[in-house]
């Protein structure tokens, strides 16, 4: 994803969610990408399937993509067990989401405080997890619509495209 989709895309997706109808795919992707929080889609084994621009800015090295890397690599050694425990808790059906304060590690190797929010993606969308890392150094975090909605919308858009490719290519 490139470019900087603006307020219109965010509003369109928010309106679609409020009306309980699917948002157009391109807008759903834009909504995920423009989020100021670092957002991730994870496989059930906690490998990164997709990451947004904020995540790439914070964690990706210049020549590397985040896709395919273990999510735990983005956390400091001292925080990895907390991160793993959080996702283990999500395995129970009555635990849709959890949050914990941990230490993240930038691409330059600097650690910094982050809030990790983990949530299980809808079974209809994916068997994996969503994760949000919010930089706690930010004194006034931007208020945005739920990152969970953004990640779900993005995942759904990816799933729809994968289905189209399988069916039509």
């Amino acid at each position: 994803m490139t470019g900087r989709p603006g307020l219109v895309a965010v509003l369109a997706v928010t309106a679609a969610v409020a009306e309980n109808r699917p948002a157009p795919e391109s807008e759903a992707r834009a909504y995920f990408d423009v989020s100021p929080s670092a957002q991730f889609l994870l496989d059930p084994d906690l490998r990164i399937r997709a990451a947004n621009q904020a995540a790439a800015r914070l964690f990706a090295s210049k020549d590397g993509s985040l896709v395919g890397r273990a999510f735990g690599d983005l956390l400091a050694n001292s925080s990895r067990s907390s991160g793993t425990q959080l996702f283990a808790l999500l395995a129970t059906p009555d635990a849709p989401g959890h949050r914990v304060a941990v230490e993240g590690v930038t691409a330059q190797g600097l650690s910094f405080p982050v809030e990790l929010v983990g949530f299980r993606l809808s079974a209809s969308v994916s068997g994996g997890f969503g994760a949000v890392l919010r930089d706690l150094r930010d004194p006034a975090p931007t208020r945005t619509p739920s990152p969970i909605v953004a990640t779900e919308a993005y995942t759904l858009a990816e799933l729809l495209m994968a289905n189209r490719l399988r069916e039509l290519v």
Partner: protein
Amino acid sequence: MNDQALVAGITALLGVAVYLYIGIRLARRTVSPEARLPAMQFAAFWIGIGASSALGGILSLIAVVQTPPLALVVAFLYYQLAVICVALWGLVSYLAYLYTGRDLIVPITVLYVLEYALLTYYVSAGFPDRVSVTYGSVNPVYATTVSGLLVAVPILLLVFPELIAALAYFRLFFRTRDRTVRYRIALVSWGILAWFLLDFLNLGNDSGGNLFWLAVGRSLSLIAALVVLLAYYPPRMIRDRYQIARIA
């Protein structure tokens, strides 16, 4: 007897068989109701390419024994422009659906109807007044050279969407991890790209009239078509080794 026209005609018609086969098989695929239209549009692309090649091949075969009459050549040119516009309409609509999940039939149809109108104007304004048979290719010769925006726009619209569409198709390679989908995207996109480039460069015209090189130049397009066929019908060795499925 014009041997060069015979080579051009036979190679064109061999390609027709491949394109029509691909188009018909794609049209018969079982897909969900919402994917029916884009599936048919992609099939229309291959059938349109086949029909266009057939028209050129028929003219070349007529030229084996005599120069085709001007009225027939001009009429075939109009038919060819129509089927090429339909083919490109199908390809662009199909890709638009793959990328966006939206049916963009109205704007794309308007674009290609305008394109056909401009192309036919270009042919009429040039006042075709005789026929040339060059290295087996049959074309009208124009009395007037038409220039300006009215020519540049339709020709650019005819050339660039094909190249952009083929490259856009290849970009889908990076959007999936499915082996079969990746294999098909790689072969089909580069097959389409090679076919258009070879058609555009018309290497047969560089043969200097040598029949062997003319056949080689013309056969390259046929090879590009066979690459696309391999995308949908991979040999058993590739299917078994890489777990790639053939078209259902």
